[in-house]
């Protein structure tokens, strides 16, 4: 190994240590204990079993999986619906304005997300600002149930995860040559056709990247479900949290986690099979 290679290795070292200690090792640990047995006192017995995985496919848990995927899917879809018009509008602005607007997108990150969720409580509850205004304007007679249900959870999810959709989509959209949009319109395409035939195909990597970054956390953000769902809803996030902290059944919690990792991996594999490139995902 010559000195240049040695230097390269030296600089990569922190990343290698970080990834192996904080990501790879815990994951391997989780994988291992998912095949352990639990005892009645919250401990683990190191005898090999696949019972945990069989338990995951219990009807109760299947329905949690499906519900989680449903919430995450709806969240992702709404994020896409909001983000596309937003980034397309921004991309036509002057570079300076673009920077300012994109910075504003990031501003909510300055506050702890838990605190922001409590903020939503104030807005969404029966006597909250939104209901008061709507009733005051005479739009509605009875206050709407905006929280402690699915609507509340989805509002919270979309609100928290929207920047993760906007950022990759924005960097994807800004690579689309504006002349292409003019050419498309010049050749007789309507705005809708231009969007679906030119913009969407070219921003697919950003769209997928954003979807992955919204969909995956949406499966697991238990605090949103706990606060805005009023503790009545169970998604994968709370399920895993409960198994580890409340039920103290670590092996079963680990098994659910592994299944969750597999689901996410399947999505990425599907993306690659459909011709997507991994490099395109890294860019944003």
């Amino acid at each position, binding site marked *: 190994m010559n000195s240049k290679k040695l230097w390269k290795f030296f600089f990569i070292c922190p990343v290698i240590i970080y990834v192996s200690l904080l990501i790879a090792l815990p994951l391997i640990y989780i994988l291992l204990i998912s095949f352990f047995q639990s005892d009645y006192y919250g401990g683990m017995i190191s005898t090999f079993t696949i019972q945990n995985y069989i338990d995951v496919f219990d009807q109760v848990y299947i329905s949690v999986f499906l519900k989680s995927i449903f919430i995450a899917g709806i969240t992702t879809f709404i994020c896409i619906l909001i983000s596309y018009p937003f980034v397309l509008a921004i991309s036509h602005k002057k570079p300076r304005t673009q920077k300012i607007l994109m910075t504003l997108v990031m501003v909510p990150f300055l506050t702890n997300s838990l605190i922001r969720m409590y903020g939503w409580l104030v807005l969404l509850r029966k006597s909250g600002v939104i209901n008061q205004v709507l009733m005051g304007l005479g739009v509605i007679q009875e206050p709407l149930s905006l929280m402690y249900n699915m609507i509340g959870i989805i509002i919270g999810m979309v609100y928290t995860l929207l920047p993760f959709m906007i950022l990759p989509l924005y960097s994807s959209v800004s690579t689309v*040559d504006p*002349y*292409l949009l*003019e*050419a*498309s*319109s*010049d*050749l*007789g*395409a*309507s705005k809708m*056709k231009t969007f679906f*035939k*030119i913009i969407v*195909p*070219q921003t697919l990597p950003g769209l997928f990247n954003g979807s992955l970054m919204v969909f995956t956390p949406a499966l697991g953000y238990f605090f949103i479900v706990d606060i805005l769902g009023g503790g009545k809803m169970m998604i994968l996030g709370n399920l895993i949290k409960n198994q580890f902290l409340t039920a103290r059944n670590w092996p079963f919690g680990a098994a659910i986690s592994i299944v969750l990792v597999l689901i996410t991996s399947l999505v990425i594999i599907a993306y690659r099979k459909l011709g997507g490139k991994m490099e395109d995902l890294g860019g944003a």
Partner: protein
Amino acid sequence: MKKVILRIEHLKKSFGNKEVIKNFDLDVYEGEFLTLLGSSGCGKTTILRAIAGLDSVSDGHIYIDGKDVTMLDPKYREVNTIFQNYALFPLMTVEENIGFGLKMKKVNKQEIKKRVQEMLELVHLQGYEKRKPKELSGGEQQRVSIARGLINNPKVLLLDEPLSALDQKLRKSMQLELKQLQKKLGITFIYVTHSQDEALTMSDRIVLLKDGVIQQVDTPVKIYEHPNSLYTAQFLGDSNLFQGIVTRVEDNYTWVKVDDATLKIVSHGWCVGDALNILLRPENIKIILKEKKENTLQGTIVDRVYDGASTNLTIRVNKKKINVMYLGNDKLYSRGQSVYITWDIEDTIVLKREAYE
């Protein structure tokens, strides 16, 4: 009388407070190759974009084949644009790119396939159907973009400096090819360029623009040989400028005092005392070794540049530097040599000098 395919009336366009196009009027005839020529920032591209509908206009009207399209969306205008950077759709194949316009018009698949084949043949790109734009050279991309425009059979094809990204040699051959294509199809071309060379080579008519105002509209020959202003004369081709005052007028000839010499020009209603600009093209000046009776100036060769096909001499006459060009590589003249220059009286370009010049 030829049919007017495109009429522009009192077109105005401002960006913010800056008026880029000031009252622009133009008739374009069916089947002609018209060039909008001007230096960058003269508004030529702005006009092209206004015709295509890509930018709105501040005032005025645009008629395509008699129909007012001023407020019409680009997709409803029967014109197509060839963009400077080609603007090919990167994820589509050559075939899909060319067929895009027809697909938008919901033409059936067999018909599109047939027409795309015809177009590929027209631009000599058979066998390229399945390639992606980035697998093509610049010249090939340009052909695809031309085919993509032409397939829609537009009333007018708008070309925005389409050859500027190509190298010199390719540009020359594409110039000829474009011109042939245009003649063959009989489609009206409006071509935007800053290259006088391109304009002279390809156009049926040239519109010379300066600061959003038309300077002259004429055929290449007329605009080169009979420019109507000093700006036109100096924009198209090189020229040597003499400024003088008319001293004597006869029926056929007029004499103009220029510095220390007196030049003879053809009478054209000039009066004694008129201030004139007299222009001589470098290729019209002849070098002789013996003095002639009139229109002869003595000078010294100060520089000599050989560029293959021609030789350019700089000759100092009094304090003025005169450019002379002749074909070939005649070794007869060398630096420092004293020579006489002369020209045919018909080759002089005479323009009345405006007060501000």
